[in-house]
């Protein structure tokens, strides 16, 4: 590039203003704590929802689709088996009572996958370089993203329950049961999300992350007690379904919805939650710190 020199540079007022704000900046604030930093990153996630509301498609339309589709496609036949009634309308009604808690859990569990995909996309952007060069507790970026996602999960959960209610779902446990189920599900989703952050950080592209996530997600949600009782499944499949944490979760949620609060199943779900975080949290952070 050979250009002629143009040495005409006047001092703009901007320069003075910049000088001023630099000099006036004497007292550097205290570094934020882990909680404050995580909440700030959570706030960023909410701002992104505000500016790009299209990203809520997966937590609005998808849950409606799942609930309506699964209930009316399988309801007639599986409902008959579950309730012992004749196949058809009554069986669908009975199936709704049984299926909605399952769909509620399944949909939220599936949505957690998008957390990882968003992260994978996000990390390739320049802004992550800046975040990583700040003197901030590093896991805050991941924790904050997961906290922001709680809003998405809540939205999806409310939609499913409303659609379920319209379709005739009347939980015996009433509002307290529904709220308890909701809370448990949010806790589980937060913990499960660490699996997807690990996958997202290990995979080079969003497509690869998607592929691997689906590979884990399909058996996790379908080989479970969500759609059909595990008793009807052949040996090995049944063993898998009964060992599946999602089955434990759904069992617990059905109990809550029925107004049953069983310490044993609550503890079992919380243990699964703890195990997920203890294994995948540190792996995520380790990979995250090494990612260039």
């Amino acid at each position, binding site marked *: *590039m*050979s*250009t*002629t*020199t143009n040495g005409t*540079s006047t*001092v*703009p007022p*901007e*320069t003075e*203003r*910049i*000088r*001023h*704000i*630099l*000099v006036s*900046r004497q007292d*550097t*604030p*205290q*570094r*934020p704590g882990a909680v*404050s*930093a995580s909440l*700030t*990153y959570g*706030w*960023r996630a909410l*701002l*992104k929802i505000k*500016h*790009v509301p299209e990203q809520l498609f997966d937590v609005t339309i998808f849950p409606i689709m799942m609930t309506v589709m699964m209930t009316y496609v399988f309801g007639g036949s599986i409902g008959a088996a579950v309730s012992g009634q004749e196949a058809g309308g009554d069986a669908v009604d009975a199936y709704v009572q049984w299926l909605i808690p399952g769909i509620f859990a399944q949909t939220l569990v599936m949505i957690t996958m998008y957390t990882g995909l968003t992260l994978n996309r996000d990390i*390739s*952007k*320049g*802004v992550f*370089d*800046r*975040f*990583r*060069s*700040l*003197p*901030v507790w590093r896991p805050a970026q991941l924790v904050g993203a997961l906290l922001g996602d709680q809003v998405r999960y809540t939205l999806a959960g409310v939609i499913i329950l409303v659609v379920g209610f319209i379709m005739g779902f009347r939980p015996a446990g009433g509002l307290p049961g529904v709220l308890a189920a909701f809370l448990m599900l949010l806790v589980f989703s937060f913990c499960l999300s660490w699996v997807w952050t690990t996958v997202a950080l290990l995979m*080079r*592209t969003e497509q690869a992350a998607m592929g691997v996530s689906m590979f884990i997600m399909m058996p996790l949600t379908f080989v479970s007690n969500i759609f059909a009782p595990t008793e009807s499944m052949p040996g090995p499949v049944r063993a898998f379904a009964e060992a599946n944490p999602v089955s434990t979760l759904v069992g617990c949620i059905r109990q809550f919805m029925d107004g049953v609060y069983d310490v044993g199943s609550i503890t079992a779900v919380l243990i699964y939650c703890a195990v997920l975080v203890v294994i995948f949290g540190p792996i995520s952070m380790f990979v995250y710190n*090494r990612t*260039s």
Partner: protein
Amino acid sequence: MTPSSDDLAVETRGLVKRFGETTAVDGVDLTIRRGGIYGVLGPNGAGKTTVIRMLATLLRLDGGQAHVLGHDVRSEPAAVRGKIALTGQFASLDEDLTGLENLVLLGRLQGFAARAARRRGQELLEAFNLGDAAGRQVKKYSGGMRRRLDIAGSLVVTPELIFLDEPTTGIDPRSRNQVWDIIRTLVDSGTTVVLTTQYLEEADQLADRLAVIDHGRVIAEGTPGQLKAQVGAGALNLRVVEAEDRERAAEILAAALSADVVREADPTALTARLDAGARASTALTALEEAGVEVETFSVGQPSLDEVFMALTGKKPETDGDAAGDEQEVADGGEHRGAAHDADHRGDHGTDGRAADDEAEAKTR
């Protein structure tokens, strides 16, 4: 490490970074004093970005040592992060958020309470002439506006050392001059600036000292003046009005500049290399005295290619290959490269509009 390390902003010894088979940085030694502007000059793929990212604690070292402001980047990364700021090659901003939200986010992450962060953000936007664009999403900013916001983001808390990775790549000349003014102001206020650039002119305009990097190695270091003395001051390009005068003009130039004169394909054009100290004006006067009518006359700085030719004796790699290298070097993997590539195209796409947007922003 060394007794004088207190005066040093950056000190590296034998810095090495490998990405798979490629050695992106191959034993870089740098000694950068506090204060002033230090330029790292090199073509695409030379390893500039990789060096900066290692110094900013974003990449692990595969070999050698690096101290930034007296702290070891390996053992005290948190201390380093507390004193530096990084403005990346591709805007380090969240494009979905507004300008103000970006600054508030960075303010809060550095410990400002919500209201203080907001006040600081507004203060910075005003100072950087972005007040009118505070509520606009960054993806709608022009290239020059982005770059200014990006730098503002590095100044939420005034850093002791700021890394600017190709701060003017892909922006229009007017915005470039603004960025230069900002950088000079920073230095006047006591911040040390380390910037990378592909442009010799930029290094010459800004840097007090510079290192020239090629293939992951420092091939020259010194003040711009010292480097130019090695390379020559540039080239004189001239076109005479009448083609038949060219031969005479060539002889006059050769005598006045004591340099080789190249006869270009255009029958009226001549190019002569200028050595440091050669006075182009002498040549022009001589031509005028001889009655040769000159149509155009310009003095060009030596191009980066010429610098590399002079320093290494060979041409730098072709653009295509080098660009491919840079992506790998900068990102450590092809996948990230692809994403950045898209960003980069976006940057260029906005170039044409940039000047208009600027003008628009001003008039509002």
